[in-house]
């Protein structure tokens, strides 16, 4: 029998204390892992959504700023239009090296002519596009052909079908983009030509036609010269073209980021309070436990246990409980974050991307180490105090 086995047997003999410490460790671990998964996931999601946008400035009709953010982040379809000539006007602004127009469309809900309901469709101009092109060249070795599309990570071909039906037209899904955790995962990308063809055919194939106003676009993605100041270029666009809102990429999702920061602060405060209370409770429980077991500890010393052996034996109990509680807390928090992801996204108003399994494992190990250290620190003072006592003092009533 070793000290670890002795610790295990002692734990089995004092179930109340064991459950309290186990629960505290599970709570601490669960809170820290759950909070970190959500906050880090939301941060990753916002960052990846910006990367996917791939532009320095997004120009849309003024007054639609919140709607485009909602569309990009949550996948809520947005419809707004501005004259197609805006793209040329923007291209002429000094400092702009590329300006590519896009159309924002959406599939119908509850209509047999659309196999995926209320999906955000983004049509781009292959002649000017600079955001999707690198991905297409790397993954598809060329442009999208007519009636072809690439989808976000969560876009799939319905079972039993070979393609996706959009307003009655069959569109081939030829590629899937990497996951962002944002609304772009539920969006489809197709060319202007495909969008216009679907719109034309929709008058005969769909229950409701897809209307694209003539000579209209929804947005313009702008790439700024490396030596130009993005903010200044945005101001110049706003001054040169009335009725448009140039949104700098770095300012996109500002509200969501502030919300995230607020959430982070709340989580840190709650975590801090939980942590302190749990540590105090563990210290109290261990203090009570070692007081109850003073005589037992005195006997161990009399039988030849060194101060260090007594300390190790008691700390092993803390370590075993921290490990058990920590693992359970981490498992429950990870599972709950995964299962209730949609609910959390709905409550927060910000999407989040769950890390890979190895990422979750690494985070779990870090959380476990933190909980282990905290429980040991909380248990250290009372156990150290009793282990330093003379055995005769420990054995006295």
């Amino acid at each position, binding site marked *: *029998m*070793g*000290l670890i086995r*002795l610790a295990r*047997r*002692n734990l*089995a*003999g004092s179930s109340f204390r064991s459950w309290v410490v186990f629960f505290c460790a599970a709570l601490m671990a669960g809170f820290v892992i759950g909070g970190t998964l959500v906050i880090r996931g939301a941060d990753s999601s916002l960052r990846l959504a910006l990367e996917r946008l791939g532009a320095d400035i997004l120009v849309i009709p003024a007054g639609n700023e919140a709607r485009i953010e909602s569309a990009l982040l949550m996948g809520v379809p947005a419809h707004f239009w501005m004259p197609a000539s805006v793209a040329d006007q923007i291209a002429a602004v000094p400092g702009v090296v590329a300006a590519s127009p896009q159309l924002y469309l959406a599939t119908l809900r509850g209509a047999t002519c659309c196999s995926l309901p209320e999906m955000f469709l983004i049509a781009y101009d292959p002649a000017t596009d600079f955001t999707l092109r690198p991905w297409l060249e790397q993954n598809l070795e060329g442009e999208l052909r007519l009636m072809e599309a690439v989808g976000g990570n969560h876009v799939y071909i319905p079972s039993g079908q070979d393609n996706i039906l959009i307003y009655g037209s069959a569109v081939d899904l030829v590629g899937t983009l990497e996951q962002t955790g944002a609304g772009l995962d539920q969006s489809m990308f197709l060319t202007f030509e495909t969008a216009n063809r679907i719109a034309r055919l929709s008058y005969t194939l769909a229950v409701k036609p897809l209307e694209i106003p003539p000579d209209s676009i929804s947005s313009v993605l702008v790439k700024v010269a490396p030596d130009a100041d993005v903010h200044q270029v945005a101001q110049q666009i706003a001054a040169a073209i009335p009725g448009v809102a140039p949104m700098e990429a770095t300012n996109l999702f500002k509200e969501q980021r502030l919300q995230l920061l607020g959430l982070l602060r709340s989580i840190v405060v709650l975590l801090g309070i939980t942590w302190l209370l749990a540590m105090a409770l563990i210290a109290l429980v261990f203090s009570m436990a070692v007081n109850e077991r003073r*005589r*037992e500890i*005195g*006997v*161990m*010393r*009399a*039988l*030849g*246990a*060194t*101060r*260090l*052996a007594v300390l190790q034996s008691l700390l092993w109990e803390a370590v075993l409980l921290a490990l058990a509680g920590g693992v359970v807390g981490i498992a429950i928090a990870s599972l709950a974050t995964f299962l209730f992801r949609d609910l959390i996204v709905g409550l927060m108003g910000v999407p989040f991307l769950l890390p890979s399994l190895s990422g979750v494992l690494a985070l779990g190990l870090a959380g476990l180490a933190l909980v282990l250290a905290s429980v040991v620190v909380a248990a250290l003072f009372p156990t150290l105090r009793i282990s330093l006592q*003379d*055995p*005769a*003092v420990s*054995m006295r009533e």
Partner: protein
Amino acid sequence: MIELQDVSKTYSIAKGRSVPAVQGVTLQVERGEFLVITGRSGSGKTTLLNLVAGLARPTSGRVLLDGVEIWKLPDAEQSRLRNEKIGFVFQFPSLMPSLTALENVLLPTLFAAAKSDTKAQAGARERAVQLMDEVGLSDKLDAYPRQLSAGQQQRVVIARSLINRPELLLADEPTSDLDEQTEQEIMATFQAIHARTGVTVLLVTHSTQLIVFGTRALRMQGGQIVAADG
């Protein structure tokens, strides 16, 4: 084997007050003796035993075990000395409630300075079983302390005290909670162990009737040894 030189022990209690438990005791116990120390409650018997075992630090004076002053040794050496040379039988129930009787007997081997290998562990287990047999509890190896009577628990404690083949056996009121018949049985066990192994026994008790089991008897009063008893 044991030498106490003008040893005193004072316990501090609340508000700066202190109580002398042992006062100026000088005592020598030879190897192989069975010394019974009697005295009323509060006479300092238990404190004297704790001083001998190095469980309590003397306020003044010296405690020597085989010529070595215990309190001058570092903690690890003190612990090794207690583990290897001294066996304890306490007045109170001292078995670990979460361990079986056999595991309790084996407990001191867990604290042995030299980490025992598998062979040594098997040897220790064999000896523990044998000791349990010697105290008449071979059928209670897997019983937990709560499943044993007070007398049976004390026998397990005696078996535990002998597991490391100690040179000195210290017993503090080992029969205080037992009925007369069990008391006689336990004392007979001590006597038999002493006779068979030649271990030095230092036993303290309030009962003067038990001095017949020893080879020498002393009486304590007010923290001092006042007379040779019997």
